[in-house]
């Protein structure tokens, strides 16, 4: 039952994220959505990921977004004339596009609800002790996936240098 509460929060706040004109409201609503997804991770016996989701996503990445929104001081989308010109805003295109999007979601939901096997409960095949253990997670991460782990450290370094270089003010 808790699943449906978290799912409703995630879907509603994600829909509001793309429905808002004000980017600060969008960022704050996205933090709510990430909190709900973190609750879903707890339901899925992944407590480590739930904590990481809160700390890294809602804590670090969203604060970075918020910081840039405030730095640029462009609170609203200067969108009125662009919205009128945009092809998706033309009445026919918007109608058919949203119908097709809803159709795609309905189709996906129907296909998934008809597939056997995925009808089982998520914890049906395994006991939760293996999955939820942080010890197992760390052991696998540092043995089986060691190369990928080290590669991500290089990725982070490159991203850091790139971000500093891109956002630097050019000296005359």
């Amino acid at each position: 039952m808790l699943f449906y509460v978290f799912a409703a929060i995630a879907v509603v706040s994600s829909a509001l994220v793309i429905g808002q004109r004000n980017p600060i409201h969008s960022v704050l609503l996205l933090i709510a959505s990430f909190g709900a997804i973190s609750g879903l991770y707890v339901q899925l016996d992944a407590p480590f990921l739930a904590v990481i989701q809160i700390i890294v996503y809602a804590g670090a990445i969203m604060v970075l977004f918020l910081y840039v929104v405030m730095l640029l001081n462009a609170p609203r989308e200067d969108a009125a004339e662009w919205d009128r010109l945009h092809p998706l805003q033309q009445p026919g295109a918007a109608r058919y596009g949203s119908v097709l999007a809803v159709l795609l979601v309905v189709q996906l939901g129907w296909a998934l609800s008809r597939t056997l096997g995925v009808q089982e409960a998520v914890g049906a095949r395994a006991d939760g002790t293996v999955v939820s253990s942080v010890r197992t997670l760390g052991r696998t991460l540092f043995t089986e996936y060691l190369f990928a782990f080290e590669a991500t450290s290089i990725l982070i370094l490159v991203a850091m240098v790139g971000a500093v270089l891109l956002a630097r003010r050019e000296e005359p």
Partner: protein
Amino acid sequence: MTPLSHYLILSAILFAIGTAGVFMRRNLITILLSIEIMLNAVNLTFVAFGRYLGTVNGQIIVTFVMTVAAAEAAVGLAIVVALYRHRESLNPDTFTALKW
């Protein structure tokens, strides 16, 4: 217990919302936020399947996805800041210098 299909349907809905945001919004920051929604939808699928199959690999891939998301957000926002300095606008339709 919740069936696996419910998690997959929720993930599909979130991914569709993110895709709609990328296509419909005229603001670079909101487009980046929509990409984050899509990445989270995929993460939910990974964790749900990992739990379903009783393996820890799904969670490990999610940690990698989170790392890539952090790097992408940092570089993407730096590009947004640089673009805003050039054109004083966040509208992606403003940046047409490479358009034929």
